[in-house]
């Protein structure tokens, strides 16, 4: 039966307050490279576009998780592919979501396990009475020809944690383990991670997974047979392969690891599969989610009645289905900066400057424009003087990021600098007033027409002189 509540009767004082996942969202990028392009098996891997990274994808997942929800009181971000090695990447996520500066943002990295570890910490924050946004994103690359390149995937996931009473998935129990071993590693100045012989990793980590999962189930008071789904995520698939037999699980209890459709999405992977499991779960379902890398995280959840009303706008399967699946291998290598290429005869992009970025932070990152309080004309970017009625300093801020828009007119620019020519640019008219001209992304150029409905997406436009330039683009609805 129920795990934690049953145990509560005897030792009420020592049991911490209950917490759970109150909302969630996911993100799988638009492009796929077929594994046969790598000469490596079946299926496809998901590929972040040339204008995406771990931060921008985490923002996309978090937007879905936060839609219509109150702002969280803490933010945790996990990745093994931080866009900046030094500079708080989580701060960019926070700003792009339009969250207040008063929120504590922290980030975890160094191992793919940190995605699920961050969720565990977020549940601790929630148990302490504060809500947290936990997000993870990863862009996974590997040395050309190796298994990390072909078996990895790119994606992001976000969870909001809060009190048990608001949970869509209540935490029943958990366990962790930390294992010091040389399994997957990368020096700061290196691009590609290395991995020790898989049989060794499996030998050490296999028992760690079995032990940690068993401990989490015991903590939850749940028998393996009572689990609706078990999520296995590991740096080394061999290491997780033994768990079903160790726990006596049936094949239908093991969640699809999205190997054929996404690939292993680094620190976001366990969460991404959990999000997909929640997309399909029924109230009462119990879920064990594990992540095995330099140790193990194991969380046991029970889905509540609230799940039906709290599902995000995009489900994981929806993201997976809305795709373009023919990206050429060499395009992918160029996008990731692995393959040098002949630049266009145009100037390299200029780095954005720190003071104007700071002055316009709410515009640049939160996509916050202004609306004239006198004549209601919308302005993107925000203006002090109304372009329509001339009123001075009578504007109120307004976020346009989640507002739909339509193409007023457009062009395909074959001359502009881009890693994916042509640049598609359009004049966008927003619902409720407001107009902005910007680039389109994840779009088939020949499909663009006046009147097309688009939505905004947070992107890394380019990196100029070592500075990432984040801003918004529009894309066809996915």
């Amino acid at each position, binding site marked *: 039966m129920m795990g934690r509540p049953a145990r509560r009767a005897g030792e009420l004082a020592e049991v911490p307050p209950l917490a759970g996942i109150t909302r969630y969202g996911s993100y799988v990028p638009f492009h796929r490279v077929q594994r046969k392009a790598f000469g490596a098996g079946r299926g496809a891997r998901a590929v972040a576009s040339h204008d995406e990274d771990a931060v921008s994808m985490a923002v996309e997942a978090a937007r879905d998780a936060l839609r219509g929800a109150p702002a969280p009181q803490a933010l945790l971000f996990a990745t093994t592919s931080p866009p900046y090695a030094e500079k708080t990447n989580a701060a960019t996520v926070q700003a792009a979501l339009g969250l207040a500066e008063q929120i504590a943002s922290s980030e975890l990295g160094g191992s793919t396990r940190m995605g699920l570890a961050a969720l565990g910490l977020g549940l601790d924050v929630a148990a302490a009475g504060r809500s947290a946004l936990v997000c993870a994103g990863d862009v996974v690359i590997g040395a050309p020809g190796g298994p990390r390149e072909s078996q990895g995937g790119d994606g992001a996931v976000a969870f909001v944690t809060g009190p048990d009473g608001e949970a869509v998935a209540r935490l029943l129990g958990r366990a962790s383990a930390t294992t010091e071993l040389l399994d997957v590693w990368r020096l700061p100045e290196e691009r590609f991670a290395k991995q020790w012989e898989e049989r060794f990793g499996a030998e050490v980590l296999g028992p760690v997974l079995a032990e940690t999962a068993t401990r989490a189930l015991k903590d939850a008071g749940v028998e393996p047979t009572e689990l609706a789904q078990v999520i296995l995520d590991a740096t080394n698939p061999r290491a997780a392969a033994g768990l079903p037999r160790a726990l006596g699980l049936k094949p239908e209890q093991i969640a699809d690891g999205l190997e054929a459709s996404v690939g292993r999405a680094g620190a976001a992977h366990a969460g991404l599969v959990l999000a997909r499991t929640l997309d399909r779960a029924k109230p009462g379902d119990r879920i064990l989610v594990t992540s095995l890398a330099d140790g193990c995280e194991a969380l046991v959840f029970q889905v509540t009645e609230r799940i039906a009303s709290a599902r995000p706008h995009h489900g994981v399967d929806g993201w997976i289905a809305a795709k373009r699946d023919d990206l050429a291998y060499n395009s992918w290598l160029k996008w990731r900066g692995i393959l040098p290429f002949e630049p266009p005869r145009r100037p390299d992009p200029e780095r954005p400057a720190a003071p104007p970025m700071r002055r316009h932070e709410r515009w640049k990152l939160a996509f916050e424009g202004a609306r004239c309080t006198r004549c209601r004309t919308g302005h993107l970017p925000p203006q002090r003087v109304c372009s329509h009625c001339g009123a001075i300093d009578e504007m109120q801020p307004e976020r346009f990021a989640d507002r739909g828009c339509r193409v007023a007119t*457009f062009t395909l620019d074959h*001359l*502009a600098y881009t890693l994916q020519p042509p640049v598609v640019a359009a004049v966008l008219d927003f619902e409720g007033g407001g107009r902005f*001209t910007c*680039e389109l992304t994840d779009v088939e150029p020949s499909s663009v027409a006046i009147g097309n409905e688009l939505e905004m997406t947070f992107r890394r436009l380019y990196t100029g002189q070592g500075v990432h330039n984040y801003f918004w683009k529009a894309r066809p609805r996915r």
Partner: protein
Amino acid sequence: MASNGIRDRVAIVGMGCTPFGEHWDKGADDLLVDACKEAYASARIEPDAVDAYWLGTMGSGVSGLLLSEALKIQYKPVTRLENMCATGSEALRNAAYAVASGAYDLVMAVGVEKLKDSGYSGLVSNRPPDDGTLPSMTAPAMFSLLAPAYAKKYGVDEGTLKDVISRIAWKNHVNGAKNPKAQFRSEVPLDKIKNSPRVAGMFGVFDCSGVSDGSAAAIVCRAEDAHKYTDRPIFIKALAFAAGPAEGFFNQDYDFTTFQEVVASCQDAYRQAGVRNPREEISMAEVHDCFTATELVLMEDMGFSPRGQAWKDVLDGRFDGDGPQPVNPDGGLKSFGHPIGASGLRMMYEMWLQLRGEAGKRQIRDPKLGLTHNLGGQPGRCVSFVSVVGR
């Protein structure tokens, strides 16, 4: 509050213009010397007769020193100014007001641009440091926004519109072929224009103006002094300029089939010059055909064609060199080339030749009033200059 104008109070009494093109062997200073030398000779004056200078350049140098050092000007005022692609016209406008005010007797407006040293395709602008959110569209992309909007609003199918803009390019190449100073001096078959590699939107390479180096200069005085320098001066009837709130970038009502700035500057110019029916009264025009669709839209903004009808006038040949209202008889930006700071004065140079009967194979029969139009920026957010000149 009024725009009073200086109709018939100021004359142009000498002009010079370098050939436009890829001057690998000349810098901005050389081009300035070439244009000014020709202008001095044209007005039959020594350089020292000029009291003050206005120098327009978008980015080929800074300050009046660019000109004074090249020409060794002896301690006289040189104003350097910039107003995007309308820079050359802006030099003339300010110079004309200086003599009209009585502050100086004889002044010179000079424009120059040296674009071909950058190593890049198309135009490159030096922007101040910014927040990285400005649209990164190239100039052809920004102007190509006009084409689908025009096609949709007036129910012209895209194939027909492509024919229309190709014919504009064809016409300007036919005109440029007759111009010894033009960058591109050969006719181009319509098929080749239509099938040229795409640059942006509906625009192929042949829908874009030439990127070139060049310089042009005008010598200006009060009308009563004009005959001291030449027996055939040309007189300024109107000078108008408009910069707006960039409303097209904010307001959903703006539909990318017009330039409000052009409409406003034309209305002002026509009022100053006493022009009531521009379609009938303007004998010829040099307009800012940075891209072919720009010229199409300008015909309507200037009142040369009714709204939604310019595409038919283009196909009918109304604006051809031998048509009833020639537009860009010198080849325009399209085939004469577009060295930014020089272009406005190059347009005036064609008026100078045509009104004096010196345009050779391009000569228009008995022109009365000519119009020059110079635009900087992009649809929805630009500056616009219009002049009307005559004998």
